[in-house]
């Protein structure tokens, strides 16, 4: 018996060590990605120049490049990556479906529709757009999510995860169709803007966008981490969750609202980036297992690394031009996802 006890203690120590190693590695990757990202872009800054500029010794041009162009974009890519990954992880847990992601709740579609409507009525060059667009996108995403929730909700059974997914797919298809119809009406400059948004180009790369995004993250992330044990219990299925005394319907509504607000505020500044919310939770689950207390932070870190790395690559791969970050994320993410599907088939 004591042997058994020792073995289990040793196992627990091993797991704790593994988790610490994974957290440190993810954080290190994020820092490395951050540093490389600062050095790369259309105008080259050597690591030494970057360092010098960072500590206040840069020329006006260097200051402009680093502080006004590069840093806000890097910070946004990290925040957006983490936020979308965390949101995806919650949605997968709540819907008990490993293929779910924030797009499923109509966030990208709803935000996209609002962006098109806005551009159609006010034009892409409108001065107002950079300040109002994130809020409009947020509004569109929120309205769509509420619509899906209402359509999927049934009085007797509450919100069945499968119905949520199917309703999400249907509403998304409807909105996409509407979007396509509207795209036809755009002129060239409007179309370019909308296409860039839909490809997830992290268009809002200035400090004001960091400031609009940050309060959401500061409010939502601690709340979500605090709810990790509720997410654990919900992932056992409704009936077991009831048995364990979770207020299933209420908790699910709150957590879904949290996940929607998180993803919507991210998408609003970055444009439509998908795949992070799908891939990061998968990777994190394979690394640390399904318990949300460790899964959520790891998933957030992985999402941040993924998007900031993708953004760096997107900026250098076809210089002097650049490809949208969202596309780069998909280029990295899709093969991994196909690999996962192929592995599950066996």
């Amino acid at each position, binding site marked *: 018996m004591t042997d058994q006890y020792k073995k*289990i203690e040793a196992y627990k120590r091993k797991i704790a060590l593994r988790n610490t190693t994974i957290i440190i590695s993810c954080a290190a990757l994020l820092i490395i990605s951050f540093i490389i990202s600062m050095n790369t872009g259309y105008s080259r800054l050597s690591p030494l120049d970057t360092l010098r500029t960072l500590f206040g010794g840069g020329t006006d041009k260097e200051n402009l490049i680093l502080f006004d162009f590069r840093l806000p974009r890097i910070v946004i890519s990290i925040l957006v990556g983490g936020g979308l990954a965390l949101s995806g992880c919650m949605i997968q847990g709540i819907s008990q479906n490993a293929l779910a992601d924030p797009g499923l709740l109509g966030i990208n579609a709803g935000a996209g529709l609002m962006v098109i409507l806005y551009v159609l009525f006010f034009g892409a060059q409108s001065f107002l757009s950079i300040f109002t667009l994130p809020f409009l996108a947020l509004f569109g995403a929120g309205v769509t999510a509420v619509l899906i929730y209402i359509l999927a909700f049934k009085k*007797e059974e509450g919100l069945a995860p499968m119905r949520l997914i199917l309703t999400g797919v249907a509403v998304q298809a409807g909105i996409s169709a509407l979007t396509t119809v509207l795209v036809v009406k755009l002129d060239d400059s409007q179309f370019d803007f909308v296409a860039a948004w839909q490809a997830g180009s992290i268009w809002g790369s200035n400090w004001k966008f960091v400031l609009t995004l940050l309060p959401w993250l500061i409010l939502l992330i601690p709340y979500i981490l605090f709810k990790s044990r509720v997410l654990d219990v919900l992932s056992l299925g409704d009936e077991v969750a009831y048995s*364990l*005394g979770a207020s299933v319907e209420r908790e699910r509504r709150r957590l879904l609202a949290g996940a929607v607000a998180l993803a919507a505020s991210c998408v609003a500044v970055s444009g439509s980036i998908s795949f992070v919310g799908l891939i990061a939770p998968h990777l994190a689950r394979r690394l640390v297992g399904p318990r949300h207390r460790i899964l959520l932070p790891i998933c957030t870190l992985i999402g941040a690394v993924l998007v900031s790395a993708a953004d760096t690559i997107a900026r250098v791969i076809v210089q002097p031009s650049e490809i949208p970050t969202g596309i780069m994320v998909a280029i990295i993410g899709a093969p991994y996802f196909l690999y996962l599907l192929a592995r599950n088939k066996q």
Partner: protein
Amino acid sequence: MNSIATENLVVAYEDNLVVDNLDMQLPQGKVTAIIGPNGCGKSTVLKAVGRILKPKNGMVYLNGDDIYHLSTREVAQKMAILPQSPQAPAGLTVGELVAYGRFPHQRGFGKLKNEDKSIIAWALKVTKLTELETTAVDNLSGGQRQRVWIAMALAQQTDLILLDEPTTYLDLSYQLEVLELLYRLNREQSCTIVMVLHDLNLAARFADYMVAIRGGDIICHGSPEEVMTATVLRETFHIDAEIVREPRTGRPTCISYDLIKGRNIMGEQV
């Protein structure tokens, strides 16, 4: 003393009335088996009692308290309910799943206290899972997996455990293993067990009290001797059964049965 009582319980799926005005009392400290044909409402009753389904009307009392006046957390400290074949997330270990049983007793971030840890260790020991604590639930056999869920319910430390067909998909030996575990929990830990069972003979062998249901109504309730009779089974299952005493346990057992001649399965004359 009743552990569970229902009064005028009405449960419906949409407009489809499954249980209409059910009054049922289940004794405390006993093993109760609910039997009945497919679609008779036995699982529905269990779910309504376990507050998974909201009844259209009527009352459910848990140890005399109206269950809908207690918070769901308070109920979870008194009653655990295991659905039919629950699913654990991939990669979750036995110890982690059993630890989730402490949920209704935790607050805040839910860090396990020493008391929680010793209860989890006890639940694993009683269900003979201590050696499997670090194994992933997906890697276990069906019988072991069922024991893990029972261990989780035990970690919840309730006086009452409801189980919906705990032996489904299990081989004969695993069925016995699970039912013997439940029987032991009842006798040694004085845990009240209420389960829906498909197998009549296993129900009669392990239960102290049986309830036969058809069409949402109680046909008969009482000791296995009172319920396992040709008359009751004829009315409940529309079968013509021969009941004898099982030589090893002395419990009534059904050795041979036929559909009643001249009636279809719904009991209608043909």
